[in-house]
């Protein structure tokens, strides 16, 4: 059982990276990014394409990919998504839904339907002894540490920096923030740029840990959604905990029957919704 829980926590680390970008964009501008999962898959494929060009190592691929993701996120928000924001959430939902379909089909066209993965080198087989006869894979552990670092980093960014203050201010009252001289279009664009960095990182790790294929996106989006909602909208540590809860639930399900994992995750998600409709750590008002 200990092993199942540890495996679940490690899986939760990956789910946390899936959902932080979603949590960030929703928190700052109340935009629900339906294309989140497909963007993660696109990030994985991009890493697979970039790696051979930079010597084959995934770290180098990440070094190249993350700044590009920042630029793409900024540009997408500035040129497209900012136009969809307003009191009505529907335009942004429709536009990101459309984006999701475009990405899935573009990936299918470019990479075919075959699952592909990114070579992790020695990391793929390395393991660490946690005492006794419990061993954990180096890569899954690295992913969990990265998730922890990203969550702590985002929380710190939000609570202590002037950029974080600007994020919270436009989230509270966009018009009042603009009265202070803030350009909300720019603030939103920086938020999406950061979300895209997290998305690219998630895609890279997904490609390393398992495989990516063009049709994976919607399932990844579902896991991201479940993590954010279990944890409570608008709280990064909530998202982190929500992702771990989901990871452990799925792993426990897998333990009973290999076909039950994802289903078990949904059950726990529904149970949390029933008992605590606002999630475990609700923060967002209104």
């Amino acid at each position, binding site marked *: 059982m200990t092993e199942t829980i540890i495996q679940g926590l490690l899986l939760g680390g990956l789910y946390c990276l899936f959902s932080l970008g979603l949590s960030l964009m929703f928190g700052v501008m109340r935009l629900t990014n339906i294309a989140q999962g497909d963007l993660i898959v696109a990030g994985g494929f991009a890493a697979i394409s970039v790696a051979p060009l930079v010597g084959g190592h995934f770290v180098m691929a990440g070094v190249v990919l993350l700044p590009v993701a920042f630029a793409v996120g900024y540009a997408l928000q500035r040129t497209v998504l900012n136009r969809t924001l307003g009191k009505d959430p529907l335009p942004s939902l429709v536009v990101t839904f459309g984006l999701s379909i475009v990405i899935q089909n573009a990936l299918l066209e470019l990479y075919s339907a075959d699952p592909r993965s990114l070579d992790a080198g020695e990391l793929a087989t390395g393991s660490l002894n946690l005492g006794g006869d419990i061993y954990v894979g180096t890569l899954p552990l690295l992913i969990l540490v990265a998730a922890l670092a990203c969550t702590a980093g985002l929380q710190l960014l939000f609570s202590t920096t002037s950029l974080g*203050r600007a994020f*919270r201010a436009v989230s509270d009252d966009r*018009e*009042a*923030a*603009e*009265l*202070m*001289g803030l*350009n909300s279009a720019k603030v939103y664009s920086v938020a999406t740029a950061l979300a895209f960095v997290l998305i690219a990182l998630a895609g890279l790790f997904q490609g390393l840990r398992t495989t990516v294929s063009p049709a994976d996106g919607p399932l990844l989006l579902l896991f991201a959604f479940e993590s954010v909602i279990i944890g409570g909208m608008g709280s990064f540590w909530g998202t982190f905990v929500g992702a771990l809860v989901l990871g452990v639930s799925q792993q426990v399900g897998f333990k009973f029957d290999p076909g039950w994992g994802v289903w078990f995750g949904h059950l726990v998600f529904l149970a949390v919704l029933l008992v605590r409709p606002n999630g475990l750590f609700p923060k967002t008002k209104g």
Partner: protein
Amino acid sequence: MTAPFLQTVGLRAHYGDAQALFGIDFHIGEGETVAVIGANGAGKSTFLKSVTGLVRVAPETVLIDGRPSGGSVPGDIVRQGVALVPEGRRLFPSLSVEENLLMGGYARRPGPWSLQRLYGMFPILKEKRKVPATSLSGGQQQMVAIGRALMSNPRLLLCDEISLGLAPIVIKEIYDALPAIAAEGMSVVIVEQDVMVAQRVSQRLYCFQEGRVSLEGASDGFTREQISQAYFGI
């Protein structure tokens, strides 16, 4: 009289199809305190929103230092030295008192106002600087709202109904602080429903009625009858 710092010429404003202002001529000079009074729906708040860029208006209808500024984005207006204390305060609930004040300084205009100076003026804000701004009492929240606007070092401070919902003693306290705030030559526009308060604190006064100026002149130069006529119409 010095040349007006801010002037509106035939200012018209619309909300969609509904016209709210029908040609407002207004001016305020350096160091002046001017009151705008009028009934609900007379266009007082719309006037302030038009001046600060929250409602789009034609460029040449708002002049700041003689330059056409109508229709600029709010950020450009605040950088030119016009700051608004919005109706209902509009503090940021997820920011602390100090963070709210720091947001006010976002435009980085140079000038005398700083956190230290505000804390000297409102010591209670220093004491409560770490707590969420919206957990304060109404009067203290209004101090934060005024302080936030002052942090942009404005040349003109626009106050939209700062007495709304406050106890009379708190209103008096806030209006008593105004002369000290304006002592360095800052201009102040007070939008107020309470005519007595408006007359007491201002040098000149405008009364709006249904989107037009119905009365204009020195604040102490009107009889009660003149004001109620301008306020309510016939």
